[in-house]
């Protein structure tokens, strides 16, 4: 018959003393069978604080993005008050080459409730599509000058959809966004 290894090392009397020892030891060390309510509450507060910290970090992150978007829009707003239009580029664009932007071959006219906001959406999409874009604000209209669109380039499809162009569209485009 297999021995019950865990049971017969100590006599009943010996186990009695050991059990009493451990009962007192656990009491001395503050060990309880169940978690006291005060500790549960304390832990809940720490969990809540961790949640709030994460939410704050997320909100602050969004605030940074909003501030950056705001910085672009300030540049465009300023352009509406000066005689010469202000150019905002999505890529590093030297002033010498800006003269080459005159009269690109294809023009797309769009209307939007907010030409400025839509222009930024196009600029964002051009970044994702790896297309050079130049934003020019003048009066209440915004021009987005796009260079070197490529036919059937998958990464440019989303951008072309915004401009109501087919996937086969290629070359340079000037998008003029007017208010509705």
């Amino acid at each position, binding site marked *: 018959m297999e021995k019950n290894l865990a049971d017969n090392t100590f*006599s009943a009397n010996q186990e009695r003393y050991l059990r009493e020892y*451990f009962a007192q030891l656990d009491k001395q060390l503050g060990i309880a069978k169940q978690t006291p309510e005060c500790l549960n509450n304390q832990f809940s507060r720490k969990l809540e604080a961790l949640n709030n910290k994460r939410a704050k970090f997320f909100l602050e992150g969004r605030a940074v993005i909003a501030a950056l978007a705001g910085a672009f829009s300030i540049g465009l707003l300023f352009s509406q008050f000066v005689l010469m239009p202000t150019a905002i580029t999505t890529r590093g664009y030297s002033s010498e080459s800006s003269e080459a932007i005159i009269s690109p071959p294809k023009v797309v006219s769009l209307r939007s409730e907010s030409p400025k906001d839509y222009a930024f959406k196009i600029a964002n999409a051009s970044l994702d599509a790896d297309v050079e874009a130049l934003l020019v604000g003048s009066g209440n209209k915004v021009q987005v000058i796009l260079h070197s669109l490529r036919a059937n380039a998958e990464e440019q499809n989303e951008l072309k959809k915004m401009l109501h162009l087919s996937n086969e569209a290629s070359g340079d485009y000037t998008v003029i966004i007017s208010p509705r």
Partner: protein
Amino acid sequence: MYMLSAVELNSLFKDLSGGVAAKSRAVGSIYSKLSPILFKKMRYRYRALSESDVHDILQDAFLKIYSSKSLPKSAEAIPSWVFVIVENAALDLFRKAYKKNELDWPQDSEGNSLEEIEVADQACSIASSHLNREVEDCVSKGMAKFSRLHPERELAISMSLDGSSIAEIAGVFRRTDAAMKQYIHESKKKLAPFIEHCIGELA
């Protein structure tokens, strides 16, 4: 003792994969259910720190479950998954606390001779009116020596005597049931020389 029912485990498993509120609720519930046994395990080992310090470290370690991107493989695996995360997180925190307080890191020094160990100052004195006081003191002193050498074995014996099942103890020690049974038997054999002179010959 700490074992969760299948219904509780399934509910926790679902919530852990849920949104922020569900996960938060699950972690709070897990803390409530599993912290007592983990506190006992840590308290037996890290006695140089205060009770409140150990509670703080344990709570901070439980918060790692919430921050962790890992999930348990199944509902049944939740307790072992919790033990791994909490104990690993707590180990770092305990090391820092011991270093900060300039305390000697506890060692489970298997094989040290009895003569090398001094009687611990913090020997727990048991005082029960129905037991022989001299025997109690003798047992306390013997246990104090044993616990300094083998805090984990002391915990295993304690759990086996307080009615925990082999499966529960095996979960805490992350061993199979058979290995745990063997470990408890060997631990009692190791304990015997420390107290046999107090209570007469062992069975």
